[in-house]
């Protein structure tokens, strides 16, 4: 296990009577790309600002490299931030923007020039030294913000939706770039985003936040394959949740749907609790002609919508009792038929119990 770089213990932040962050405890390891993912207003920025020193927790403890920094002002923390709006100094050249932190920590002359040069090289902006921020494109400004933070070689870099202001194509490109830079410099990144795709492609681990706490903290694969709560299942990728009467049969959980059908999932997938459900991702479902042999779990239904999306075709299937399920089928792999299913056709939906997942009781409920 690598060293712990950042540790939050039971950190809570209240603004008046509103709780923005509600008792978060987590460890971020040295050199990790750690992401706080969640919808707007869930407390991501507030958490990040407390780590950066711009906000003080109402209660709880924040440690950096084993040292308690809960009440240390921002300028004394070995942490730098890439702000969502970049916050480049408009009256300083790119060179001076990047050199700002170095100069404040007393580094002089040639050393400043060398390190600023290195940082600009890292973000591929050599030659922009004498420009002013107003003369940069959004993507370039974003790189300068990154260089300005990285040049100080902080223990931890905080990034608050750094790609939020860029268009989709540039965002993807910069995402890959960010990941490369992080690997190159080996600095711990704590990254905030509400874009699950961004989080999945870049992160080592992701904390999925909701209403001031995180519901699951895991790697991208685990979050997708084994979402632990309804919220995570819905926020990270698409899923079908099957709710009903919960039971237990040997080493399997059972859920009996209102229609009377029973579906199963191995207990090894997780604890279903008293109010949980069994879920399954759309691509794990197969569509069969009614009566064909199923893979374990099976539900009858009617195709109500078909959308051809290139790589996949997406279906909405309505089962008994109005239950709607999302199914996606790879277009290369039409083993059962040579054509897409059409609305109105009767089908059997089937999947192997171990390909589902189990969500437990809601966190904090």
């Amino acid at each position, binding site marked *: 296990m690598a060293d712990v770089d950042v540790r939050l213990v039971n950190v809570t932040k209240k603004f008046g009577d509103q709780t923005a962050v509600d008792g978060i405890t987590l460890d971020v390891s040295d050199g990790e790309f750690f992401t706080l993912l969640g919808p707007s207003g869930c407390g991501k920025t507030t958490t990040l600002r407390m780590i950066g020193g*711009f906000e003080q927790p109402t209660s709880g403890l924040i440690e950096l490299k084993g040292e308690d920094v809960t009440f240390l002002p921002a300028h004394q923390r070995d942490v730098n931030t890439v702000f969502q*709006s970049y*916050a480049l*100094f408009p009256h300083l050249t790119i060179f001076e923007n990047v050199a700002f932190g170095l100069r404040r*920590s007393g580094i002089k002359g040639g050393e400043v020039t060398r390190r600023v040069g290195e940082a600009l090289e890292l973000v591929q902006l050599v030659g922009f030294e004498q420009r002013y921020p*107003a003369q940069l494109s959004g993507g370039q400004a974003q790189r300068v913000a990154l260089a*300005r933070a990285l040049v100080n070689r902080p223990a931890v870099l905080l990034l608050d939706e750094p790609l939020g202001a860029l268009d989709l194509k540039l965002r993807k490109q910069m995402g890959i770039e960010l990941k490369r830079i992080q690997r190159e410099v080996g600095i711990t990144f704590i990254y905030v985003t509400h874009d699950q795709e961004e989080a999945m492609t870049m992160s080592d681990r992701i904390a999925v936040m909701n209403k001031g706490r995180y519901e699951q903290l895991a790697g991208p694969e685990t979050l997708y394959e084994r979402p632990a709560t309804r919220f995570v299942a819905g926020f990270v990728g698409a899923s079908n949740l099957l709710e009903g009467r919960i039971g237990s049969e040997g080493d399997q959980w059972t859920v009996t749907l209102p229609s009377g059908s029973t579906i199963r999932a191995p207990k090894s997938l997780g604890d279903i609790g008293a109010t949980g459900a069994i879920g399954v991702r759309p691509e794990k479902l197969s569509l069969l002609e009614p009566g064909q042999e199923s893979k374990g779990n099976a539900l009858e239904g009617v195709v109500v919508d078909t959308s051809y999306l290139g790589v996949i075709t997406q279906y909405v299937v309505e089962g008994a009792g109005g239950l709607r399920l999302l199914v996606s089928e790879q277009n290369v792999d039409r083993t059962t038929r040579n054509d897409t299913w059409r609305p109105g056709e009767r089908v059997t939906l089937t999947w192997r119990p171990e390909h589902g997942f189990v969500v437990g009781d809601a966190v904090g409920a």
Partner: protein
Amino acid sequence: MGLIRRHPALVPLLLLLPGITWLGSFYLAPNLQMFASSFWSGSLENGFAFSLGNWVNYPNALGTYQEQYLRSIQYGFAATLICFAIAFPLAYFIAFRSGRARSILLFLVVAPFFTSYLLRTIGWRTILGDESIVLGPLKSVGLIDPSARILDTPVSVVAGIAYNFVPFMILPIYVSLEKIDRRLLEAAQDLYASSWGAFRRVTLPLAAPGIFAGSLLTFIPAIGDFVNAELLGNPGTTMIGNVIQRQFLVVRDYPTAAALSFMLMLLILIGVTIYGRLLGTEELTSKAI
């Protein structure tokens, strides 16, 4: 409309037309007329005659009134410094710390304008008078000499000028401070600047255009002011504005008055240019946006 569509280059011209007409008739024409009259000789009774040889009006006027020029510069300078010392902290407070009181405070800054300039200045006679609320208590306690006075001294003149022009310093500084993105200050602190460091490296440079504008708006009218010296001063505090006013309206020596006015304008122009260079404001204003 058709004309504009065919000649889009006309648009700026049309937009400028009212301004040009106004300035042409009420600024440029009188100035030219005044410039011409500075080369006059003669008197109101015997009539004036124009001759380029009358350039001597300039050195003559300067020779006679250099003391008043010098005094105006000193008073204007002192008043501008006082205004800055009052205005910057106040503007800073209103921009950064005032919360919901902001609009009330801004209103209070401009509230004096609802009363006439003359009346307010005369009001200062009461405030600064020998037995006034300022001096009276101090004298009765024995803190200062019973014969001490402020009214009709350079102090009261400079105080009056500073009082009258301080809003012109506050407002531009406030505007420039208000515009500063608060996240820039957080960014500075994130990059190891202390609060003072962030102020010096970020707030102050970004406020420079406001400071520049404010000090011009204060210094220029202050240096040409005559009301405060007239109402709050003594014959020994006469400023160049008083001289010009008297030459125009009392003595009616138009050539001398005109020459004095032009030298004052030139003086201000030179001063402003040097000041602008020193502060590098052109760069600042174009890049701070």
